[in-house]
């Protein structure tokens, strides 16, 4: 007779309470996994975007909590381009706006004739022909999510824009975006002469230390701007930071919910099993074995809740992807380390929750337990 089968049968004997406790833990763990996946998905999407463009570094305003940083003068591009080691640059002005049923669509515009345009692959229609042509390009995912094709129009910033082309991009973010010539977006969004990202390409073969020193120099010349390598910029991005902050908050919340629900369940269980624990003590079980039994049961609730939470996160992700409006806008990348972290976290939360009930149970005197009857 081992502890584990005893514990499993005890939990099974109280099915409804066990199920509700597991559900409570699982929902919290699902939220943690999903948010971690969201942050990772965003980082991956950002990296894809930078790679697809061939961008080595990004300049933007020091993040101020908004997913899209505040605009700054495009004149800065001129002085940055003149620095030794910089091969080329491309200004970007982006915004997130609701369109139709979609709560958040990325509208982006690129400096005319900059290298950024080179990676786009038009699969239908054509590219804009002039920097001030009032047309839009749709990424393939955006086209599907918005239900727009060549020749359709889209209401943006109070004007109807004809769709002149559909493009493909290796970047999921770009694939879900609406692309406008920079001049047009600057004018329509009251940001004439402004950009909120400056993409940079270094001279080929530049050493990493040299690249970093150029970026520090840019920050020194232009206080208030942040310059970072493309590979690191995702982590600096305020969206990533916001999602990470949310993840931390949800983790803490899940911990509190997990702690209270498992502790409540275990206290109830100890109370209901007063006689059983008394008998076990009477027939010679040591207090330490009783403690182990309760702790193991609480940990088992934690680990099972954690695993269920991970499975729920996978299921929820697939469910969300069924909605084009969500599937085109976000990516949830559930990495193995997030799964391991969540299951371990749930197990530890379970074990901690079981401490007090375990101590209480182990201190129970057999005669007191018999009187309880």
């Amino acid at each position, binding site marked *: *007779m081992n502890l584990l*089968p*005893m514990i499993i*049968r*005890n939990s*099974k*004997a109280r099915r409804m309470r066990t199920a509700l406790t597991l559900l409570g833990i699982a929902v919290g763990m699902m939220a943690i996994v999903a948010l971690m996946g969201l942050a990772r998905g965003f980082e991956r999407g950002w990296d894809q975007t930078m790679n697809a463009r061939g961008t080595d570094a990004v300049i933007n305003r020091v993040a101020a909590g908004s997913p899209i940083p505040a605009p700054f003068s495009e004149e800065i591009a001129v002085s940055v381009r003149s620095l030794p080691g910089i091969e080329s640059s491309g200004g970007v002005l982006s915004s997130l706006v609701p369109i139709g049923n979609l709560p958040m669509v990325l509208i982006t515009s690129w400096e005319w004739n900059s290298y950024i345009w080179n990676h786009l692959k038009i699969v239908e229609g054509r590219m804009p022909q002039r920097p001030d042509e009032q047309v839009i390009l749709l990424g393939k995912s955006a086209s599907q999510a918005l239900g727009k094709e060549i020749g359709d129009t889209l209401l943006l910033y109070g004007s109807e824009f004809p769709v002149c082309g559909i493009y493909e991009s290796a970047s999921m973010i770009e694939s879900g975006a609406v692309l406008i010539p920079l001049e047009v977006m600057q004018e329509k969004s009251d940001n004439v002469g402004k950009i909120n990202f400056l993409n940079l390409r270094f001279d080929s073969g530049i050493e990493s230390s040299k690249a970093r020193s150029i970026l520090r120099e840019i920050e020194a010349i232009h206080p208030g701007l942040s310059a970072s390598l493309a590979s690191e910029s995702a982590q600096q991005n305020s969206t990533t930071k916001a999602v990470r902050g949310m993840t931390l908050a949800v983790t803490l919340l899940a911990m509190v919910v997990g702690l209270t629900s498992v502790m409540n369940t275990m206290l109830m269980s100890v109370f209901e099993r007063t*006689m*059983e624990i008394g*008998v*076990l*003590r*009477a*027939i*010679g*079980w*040591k*207090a330490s*074995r009783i403690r182990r039994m309760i702790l193991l049961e609480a940990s088992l609730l934690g680990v099972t809740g954690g695993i269920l939470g991970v499975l729920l996160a996978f299921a929820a992700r697939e469910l969300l992807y069924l909605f084009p409006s969500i599937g085109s806008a976000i990516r949830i990348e559930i990495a193995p380390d997030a799964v391991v972290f969540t299951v371990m976290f749930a197990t530890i939360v379970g074990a901690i929750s079981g401490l007090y009930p375990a101590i209480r149970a182990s201190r129970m*005197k*057999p*005669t007191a337990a018999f009187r309880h*009857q």
Partner: protein
Amino acid sequence: MEVVPSQCLSEAIAVTRSYEDGRIQALRGVDLQVEEGDFIAITGSSGSGKTTLLQMLGGLDSPDSGEIFFRGEALSRMGDLSTFRAQKVGFVFQSFHLLSTLTAAENVQVPMVESSMHKSERAPRAAHLLSEVGLEDRIHSRPLELSGGERQRVAIARSLANQPELLLADEPTGNLDRASAAMVMELLSRIHQENGMTLVLVTHDPTTAGYASRQIHMRDGMVKHTTPVPPLRR
């Protein structure tokens, strides 16, 4: 004055125990000697202190004053009494107290986890003990699938799991019908006679007490008289 134990198996010397801040005097200076091989029935009305005395002998409770000895060693000096209870004493309770989620065989194995018995020996020993109490065909049954008499026989098998030296039974027939009670008492008698098991049971039923070789009658927390039972009656 230092109490000096005799050479008997278990002994209570001047044991007192009260509850509820002394308002209830459960035991008032009880002396009792349990010799090896004894079969003792402690009788008395409800509240006479017989169950409290049994719990003291089994190390389930501690006296306010006086001392309990087992083979001359004071229980108060043993520290953690769970080892004593696991290795030296077997308990049978009125309400059986089997774990409802476990099978009969598993219930019998529960005390074995605190013994030095190897895991591989536990299941065969449980099966052997259940067969000894006539339940070889109910090994995999859960308590709810068993009759009261069968449950008590599982509890008796459990009490023998670690080959105790002293078997303590608290109203073992209290929840049983007459036929089941007789069967259980025959079983306990057989264990006593065949294995030389020392047995102390608490009962208020004269028929059950009649199986013992010695009856100790308690009243108001004190031993009133001891009656050797004539051999014919046993």
